């Protein structure tokens, strides 16, 4: 099983290395790898004992693999989910507009769709769950892409960059092309000629080019500082998911299993801590009960989780408490856990959780340990 884990990590490391070698279309340089958000579709698969849906900065793409380790054993992943931002596809051909318009649309553009699947034995040994989730971030402080105060810090870097390009890069490129710099408006021979301009844009996009190198280095420092200050920023997310269960892996005869609603508030506390308060309401059917009464009835569950995190963006520990009411059995449950979240390499996060799940109605408690791998595109990943 260690080989499987190493395999996952190798893919990510390769994506990192390839991403740094290939130029052309890049994914956002303002994308910051704050922790990978919990995905509604993944949460609905019941892969984690906590019902807290952690809010985070919207990402174009993220994936989660679950249950690599549980009950003291490494396992083949039982569950997998991906989350995509539709704005990635919808905005590609839109004409550009004023900067303030993008900030105004930030809430609508935070809408994301997730799809997850997991193995289950609820109907038979080969049954599978399919989850479809929707999420929107109503409050999302700490997003560099829409933070005007942070943009004001980028502007001086760009001033330094454009002056350096004019003074050094453009002159070097002119020398390469044999352009006489004593001629009137010699720069226009480069920027006014479509073929020459394309060549110059490519020359400037090289991360080893002196002006570009200086800018990206300054920019990286600014982003690191921003992450330090904003990993625990205030946020409010609302999400919805629908879970279906099928008796086979082709998802024939998909039956409604459960609908979930999440509301999570993240409150910044100082520079090194954050409090997450959540609500999870479920409407579910008991698919294991095949009696005719059960097929038409549904029941409600509710959970109120709270998590206190402390640390930095890359390494943080947390303590969590959760109360749940299970409507079908009228049981009360409490879940207490300690955990850690570590960003081992760019784009890969490891979540470790250990805690007690206690059913106070049945007076049963059990220890639960959980190890998840969460993946998103590395900050420097390039699509092509």
């Amino acid at each position: 099983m260690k080989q499987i884990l190493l395999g996952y990590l190798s893919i990510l490391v390769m994506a990192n290395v390839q991403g740094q070698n290939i130029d052309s279309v890049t994914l956002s340089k303002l994308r910051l790898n704050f922790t990978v958000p919990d995905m509604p579709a993944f949460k609905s698969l019941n892969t984690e004992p906590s019902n807290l849906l952690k809010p985070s900065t919207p990402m174009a793409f993220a994936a989660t693999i679950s249950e690599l380790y549980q009950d003291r054993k490494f396992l083949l992943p039982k569950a997998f989910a991906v989350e995509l931002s539709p704005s990635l596809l919808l905005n590609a051909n839109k004409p550009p507009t004023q900067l303030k318009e993008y900030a105004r649309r930030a809430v609508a553009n935070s809408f994301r769709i997730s799809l997850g699947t997991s193995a289950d034995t609820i109907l038979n040994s080969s049954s599978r769950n399919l989850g479809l989730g929707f999420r929107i971030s109503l409050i999302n402080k700490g997003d560099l892409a829409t933070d005007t105060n942070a943009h004001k810090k980028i502007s001086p870097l760009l001033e330094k960059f454009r002056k350096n390009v004019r003074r050094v890069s453009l002159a070097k490129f002119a020398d390469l092309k044999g352009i006489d710099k004593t001629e009137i408006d010699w720069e226009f021979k480069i920027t006014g000629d479509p073929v020459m301009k394309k060549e110059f844009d490519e020359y400037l996009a090289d991360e080893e080019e002196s002006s570009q190198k200086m800018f990206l280095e300054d920019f990286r420092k600014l982003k690191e500082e921003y992450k330090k200050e904003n990993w625990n920023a205030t946020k409010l997310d609302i999400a919805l998911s629908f879970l279906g269960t099928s008796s086979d892996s082709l998802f024939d005869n998909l039956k409604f299993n459960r609908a979930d609603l999440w509301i999570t508030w993240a409150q910044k506390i100082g520079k090194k801590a954050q409090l997450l308060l959540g609500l999870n309401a479920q409407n579910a059917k008991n698919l294991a009960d095949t009696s005719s009464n059960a097929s038409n009835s549904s029941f409600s569950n509710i959970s109120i989780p709270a998590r206190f995190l402390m640390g930095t963006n890359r390494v943080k520990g947390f303590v969590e408490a959760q109360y749940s009411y299970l409507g079908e059995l009228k049981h009360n449950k409490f879940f207490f856990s300690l955990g850690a979240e570590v960003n081992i390499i760019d784009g890969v996060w490891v979540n470790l959780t250990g805690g007690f799940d206690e059913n106070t109605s049945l007076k049963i408690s059990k220890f639960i340990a959980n190890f998840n791998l969460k993946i998103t595109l590395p900050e420097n990943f390039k699509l092509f």
Partner: protein
Amino acid sequence: MVTVFFNPNGGTLFANAVFLGDMVANYEVLLREKNSNSETSLLSGDNLNPEDDVTSLPMPPVINDGRRVILETGFVGNKPDDNPNYEIRLEIFQDNQKLGFDVDRGTLNGKGQFSLLFIKLVAQ
């Protein structure tokens, strides 16, 4: 090079910079002397404040005959994967009329990018 004809006996000439796209842009508007690469800065700033990025050219207008207005911009895309397109325009106005413009359209790549637009002013 785009040439803009203006009325030497008309009102003040204005140069207006327009930045469209999900990007942070820092710019400078320069005026280059006739038949020379000698230039003076008219305005510098960024696209982050609500005010228009506009500056007046020296008076009387006729002294601008043969000069070139240059817009130099350094910019970086905020979310080039989500919002990839940009447009930078340099416009010349006189007596509330747009006399002409030059434009640079392209794709944001998430790195530092550079644009240089030229407009030649000719008295008519």
